[in-house]
């Protein structure tokens, strides 16, 4: 038995399992990470996280300042400033609740506050709908928040720990949003391995703002008026922090594998049956479930199809993802969001993928799909249909000039 397998055995012995949902997994991670300040304001489907935190605190299992604010605007502001004084902080929301916090969201990256927010992805009202749609979180995509989409409750727990480690690294000091598909992940339970605190302590150092800590002994001013004298330099620094996050993320996943013995492969995206695939679909979040089912069926029929699930959306691993995708005969991109009036009338991810492929010597046709909006189920026939369209593009070698809406009434 070599040293690595030996650790793996102790690992398996010390972990506990619990049947919890994706939201609850984030709450459990906040307990393991000993988060100091947690702010909340209820909205479905994210509220399952805040309620689990409340329960853990009431049960004496978690020690955190827990503030249910009067709105999202307040809860994000409170968490953000707790982060400025050196507290590890967590907040979260869904849909229009996330939008209502937008003023705070927009300024957090420039203030270099490593706040974590859980987004229970939800359609934006009006018209009122609770189901998942990614436009809420994506509205903040350009502002300097790191952004990750998780797929399972286990990944929600693990990524929350990883995100704290990366966000609170001084080379980064950026906020991070963790997107969990409303209902499909926030409300569905699975067996989750809960690591012991000792491993988390080994993995996650104390949050130390050093000379940037807001404290009477360290008189500094946060967010002074700067205008054109300094604003561009501040943006450039935030941009550099996001670039740094790529390497820091790799380090964190490496350490995570060593300590927790769970291997996510490439941190930025997951590959499923890509080795010999001719065509692939690309998407984010719990979409992977129906896509993986269809891939297994199509493979049984002899079709060489695969899937790439983008995990980290910001920072985006355009180099490796571009290299990977350029190998295939066609790429279908599935958006659970929209970007009306955008090139090819597609969703957000599709145009990110097009841009990613532009730098590659070989560019396969890209077919963009919009589906599963407002929580509509992406069904097995829907996925088959998307693979068929992608197959057709591979045969003709041409990208369609427009986006296909799948599973929508005429």
């Amino acid at each position, binding site marked *: 038995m070599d040293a690595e397998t030996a650790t793996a055995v102790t690992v398996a012995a010390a972990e506990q399992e619990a049947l919890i949902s994706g939201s609850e997994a984030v709450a459990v991670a906040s307990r393991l990470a000993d988060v100091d300040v947690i702010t*909340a304001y209820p909205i479905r489907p994210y*509220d399952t996280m*805040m*309620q689990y935190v*409340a329960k853990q605190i*009431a049960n004496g299992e978690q020690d955190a300042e827990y503030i249910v604010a*009067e709105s999202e605007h307040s809860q994000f502001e409170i968490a953000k400033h707790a982060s400025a004084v050196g507290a590890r902080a967590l907040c979260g929301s869904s849909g*229009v609740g996330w939008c*209502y916090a937008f003023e705070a969201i927009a300024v957090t990256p420039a203030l270099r506050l490593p706040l974590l927010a859980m987004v229970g992805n939800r359609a934006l009202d*009006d018209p009122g709908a609770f189901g998942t749609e990614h436009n809420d979180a994506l509205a903040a995509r350009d502002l300097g928040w790191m952004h990750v989409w998780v797929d399972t409750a286990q990944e929600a727990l693990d990524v929350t720990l990883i995100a704290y480690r990366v966000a609170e690294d001084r080379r980064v000091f950026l906020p991070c949003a963790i997107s969990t598909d409303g209902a499909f992940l926030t409300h569905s339970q699975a067996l989750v391995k809960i690591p012991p605190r000792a491993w988390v302590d080994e993995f996650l150092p104390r949050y130390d703002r050093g000379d940037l800590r807001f404290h009477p002994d360290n008189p500094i001013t946060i967010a002074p008026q700067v205008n054109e004298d300094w604003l561009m330099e501040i943006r450039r620094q935030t941009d550099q922090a996001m670039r740094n996050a790529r390497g820091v993320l790799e380090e964190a996943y490496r350490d995570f594998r060593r300590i927790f013995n769970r291997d996510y492969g490439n941190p930025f995206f997951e590959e499923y049956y890509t080795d010999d695939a001719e065509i692939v679909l690309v998407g984010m979040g719990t979409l992977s479930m129906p896509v993986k089912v269809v891939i297994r069926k199509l493979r049984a029929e002899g079709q060489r199809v695969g899937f790439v699930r983008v995990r980290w959306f910001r920072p985006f691993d355009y180099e490796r993802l571009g290299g990977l995708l350029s190998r295939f005969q066609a790429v279908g991109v599935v958006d659970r969001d929209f970007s009306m009036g955008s090139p090819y009338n597609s969703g957000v991810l599709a145009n990110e993928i097009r841009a990613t492929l532009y730098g590659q010597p070989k560019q396969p046709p890209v077919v963009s799909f919009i589906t599963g909006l407002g929580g509509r189920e992406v069904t097995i026939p829907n996925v088959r249909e998307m693979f068929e369209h992608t197959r057709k593009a591979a045969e003709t070698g041409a990208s369609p000039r427009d986006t296909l809406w799948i599973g929508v009434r005429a």
Partner: protein
Amino acid sequence: MATALTFKDFAGQKAMWCPGCGDFAVLRALQEACARLALPPHRIVLVSGIGCSGKITSYFSSYGFHVHHGRTLPIATGIALANRDLAVIAAGGDGDGYGIGLNHLIHAIRRDVDLTYVVMDNGVYGNTKGQTSPTTVAGTITPSSPSGAVEEPVHPLRLALAAGITYLAQGVSSDVPQLVRLIAGGIEHRGFALINVLSPCPTYDRLRTYQWWRARLVNLDEEPSYRPDSRELAVEAVSSRDASIVGLVYRAPGRPFQSRLPRFRPSPLASERLAPDGERARRILDARYAV
């Protein structure tokens, strides 16, 4: 021949609140009040916020606008300014009106916008499944405060009176006839009217039931010494016993925002001809260039 309106003329979709919800009584009272005032549905706009209470726009037949969480009053203000021929009624929950949207209440009061605001105060966030709301009594156990709420509640009546409200009332869902009077009075009042309704949530609040309220409430309307036109008595009542009074708390002559706007015309903006009169414009231009 026109027949008298009844509450049935204001029946919208079938109400889907939980059995026993206090909001049924508010809906019925609003329907009766409009019937009593002979306000036909097409002369009414009901604006509601997000929450169980906010569903009232679907259940009440009139023009309706179901707006974002907490934003009833700015939208109702806009409507009231654009069309003074309409009776504008805003409705929502305590979370909507006294939490996320609270600042609007103070500004609507100080402007004395001519509209009626009915708050269904159940002391919880009903729609999001029973968490602590701004009017939850300290110590109450809810999903967001499993060891008991730590904060003191907002006192809407005190707040409204301090902000200078000109029509203030509190009702309870178990007394529909009184609610009808209070709401009708609010609609008739020229200025901003707040009717706070203690509206039990049998699903998430097991404490403050109809019986619980009945044992505690005093009806100001039946107190011979109480005069709602006395600010002193109102201040005294809301400061010492705001959680146990129902009835008309305070009424003073309003100074509606609409009447104070310098350019506000006598006829509603909605019925004014805003496009230029083509014929007249041509005459002016013809005259100017002498053609």
